[in-house]
């Protein structure tokens, strides 16, 4: 469902945000791994292979994300 | 100076400063100097200035070759597709179809490459040109897993090059040593991990067996201890997940194994063909 696998997402979270946030976000990511998530994600966050773009940074950045150029 | 020489003089000026021929000359000089990026632009310019449709196909072909030299097969194909093949001679038509097939092969689009090769064999009647494209045809057949066709073409190649039939090479083509994907899946269905072992992945086989077996054992022990929720939601669920995952993984192992064997076979064939192609 997701562009990056659950294990890669965990690794990145631990690396960028530490152990506590890593554990909590990894557990949360496991519960979010469901086919229905694709319909709930805006199309700008879905890549050409119909996988959801999900980065740990999305959860901690307050500014709106600007993706690739038009 | 005689008055009669004036028209000749004016023609000379015109010829010297004719835009199309200057552009073409410049493009050719850039091509010879291996400045393919710039040469491509000037071939397009020559095409733009050209008033002769029969020359246009040649210009497009040269432009396509510029992109081929830069390894930009997509751009090469776009330009080859612009060529009006129906207006071309047999030998030029051959060159166009061959280059299309080759660029599709190099960009790993094997089914399209096979289609262009079919067009080449259908539309080009000159059999003396056949030998060169046999090399590419055999490689495309192997990539498309059409080993019998590849073997037939290989025999034809050996005949045309007057070589004695190489039975070892033909045997490799007729009976490639691949693993059966369905068999790997069935073996894993019978015993988790057996499919991986069939393809030589013994570590993964052991892992798969232990995980599936462990989950099943946990489920059984839970049932015996009357822990039914644990038996169903942990034991049975994980056992099913590992079992289904193992089936899929055994197929993937078989595919990987076959891919490696195929690449080795194609490398062997390529070496053999390039050695014997005169």
């Amino acid at each position, binding site marked *: 469902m997701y562009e990056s696998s659950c294990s890669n997402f965990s690794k990145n979270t631990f690396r960028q945000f530490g152990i506590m946030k890593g554990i909590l*976000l990894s557990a949360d990511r496991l*519960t979010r791994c469901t086919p229905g998530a694709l319909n709930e994600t*805006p199309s700008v966050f879905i890549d050409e292979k119909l996988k959801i773009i999900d980065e740990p940074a999305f959860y901690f950045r307050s500014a709106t994300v600007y993706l690739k150029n038009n | 100076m005689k008055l009669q020489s004036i028209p000749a003089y*004016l023609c000379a000026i015109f010829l010297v400063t004719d835009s199309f021929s200057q552009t073409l000359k410049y493009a050719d000089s850039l091509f010879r100097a291996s400045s393919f990026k710039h040469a491509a632009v000037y071939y397009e310019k020559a095409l733009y200035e050209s008033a002769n449709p029969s020359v246009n196909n040649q210009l497009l072909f040269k432009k396509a070759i510029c992109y081929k030299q830069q390894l930009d097969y997509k751009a090469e194909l776009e330009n080859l597709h612009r060529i009006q093949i129906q207006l071309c001679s047999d030998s030029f038509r051959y060159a166009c179809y061959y280059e299309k097939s080759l660029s599709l092969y190099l960009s790993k689009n094997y089914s399209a490459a096979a289609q262009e090769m079919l067009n080449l064999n259908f539309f080009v009647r000159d059999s003396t040109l056949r030998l060169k494209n046999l090399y590419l045809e055999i490689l495309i057949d192997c990539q498309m897993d059409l080993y019998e066709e590849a073997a037939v073409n290989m025999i034809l190649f050996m005949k045309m090059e007057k070589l004695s039939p190489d039975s070892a090479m033909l045997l490799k083509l007729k009976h490639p040593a691949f693993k059966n994907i369905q068999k790997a899946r069935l073996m894993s269905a019978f015993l988790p991990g057996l499919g991986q072992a069939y393809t030589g992945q013994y570590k993964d086989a052991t892992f798969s067996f232990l995980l599936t077996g462990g989950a099943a054992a946990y489920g059984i022990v839970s049932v015996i*201890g009357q822990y039914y*929720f644990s038996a169903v939601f*942990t034991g049975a669920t994980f056992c099913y997940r590992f079992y289904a995952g193992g089936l899929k993984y055994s197929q993937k192992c078989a595919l990987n194994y076959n891919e490696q064997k195929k690449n080795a076979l194609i490398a062997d064939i390529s070496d053999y063909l390039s050695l014997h192609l005169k």
Partner: protein
Amino acid sequence: MARLQLTHLFSLALLSTTLLQDIYSQNKGSDSRFYNYLLKEEMFLEADDYIELNPDIFSTNDSLNFNHAYVKYRLQEIDSSLIYLKHVPPTSPLYVSGNNFITQIYMNQGKTDSAKKYLAAKKSVGSPDISSDIFTLQSSGLALLDRDTAAYHKQFYGALFENRELFQQHNTLNETFNELKKVKKKSVLAAGLLSALVPGLGKIYAGNNAQGFSAFLFSGILAAQAYEGYYRGGISDPRFIVYSCLFSLFYVSNIYGSVLSVSVKNNQLNSQINHEITVNTSIPLRYFFGH
């Protein structure tokens, strides 16, 4: 006789010079026609290369910089495009168009303050060209990007367009504005409390129904197994200890995830809307400057 020959030579020389000059200017004209042909056929790589080899096809440096910037923009080489655009001076007739592009680039990158700096530069007054329409369109787009409803209303209701296509683009922008009005801001505290009450409910509140349901199932199954362990073996049962730890972990992570998912969802919706705004404002630029 000698005088006659001299006269002939002189006439020939004059004729040759005139002919050569004429052929030279025709070639130069054909060079720029070829460049326009490359743009029309969308062969931007070739156009880029051609400009680098023949900068003199443009009569002025400004025209060269502007055209080079446009080709780089179409090739998605945005940094190079910006550099060329900023070389077009205010005295140039292409300055306003250049600023249109710079504004659009900054809007695409979310740098609304920089975009406004180049937008406020010049608006063509009086002449029936498209630059004033583009100014209006970009101003509306910027107001929407800043979520400044008052400024947007002022731009939209005061807008007069010369060009029909740009007017329609402006209407499309208004549809995006209407979509924006429907977006309700969710409370982070409410999401957290709901998830604490029932695992997964906070995510459903944030708009992620499938994810909320999945979280509920996860926690529910772990809770059931923990309860079973406690029921069968008491508080010291290993299953009870393991499953209750796992349940606690997923319970807390669900609350944490629900709280974050509200802001993530807001960000995602904002990004989607911003993307629609910038696509709407960039379409006219490609259409009008590519032909």
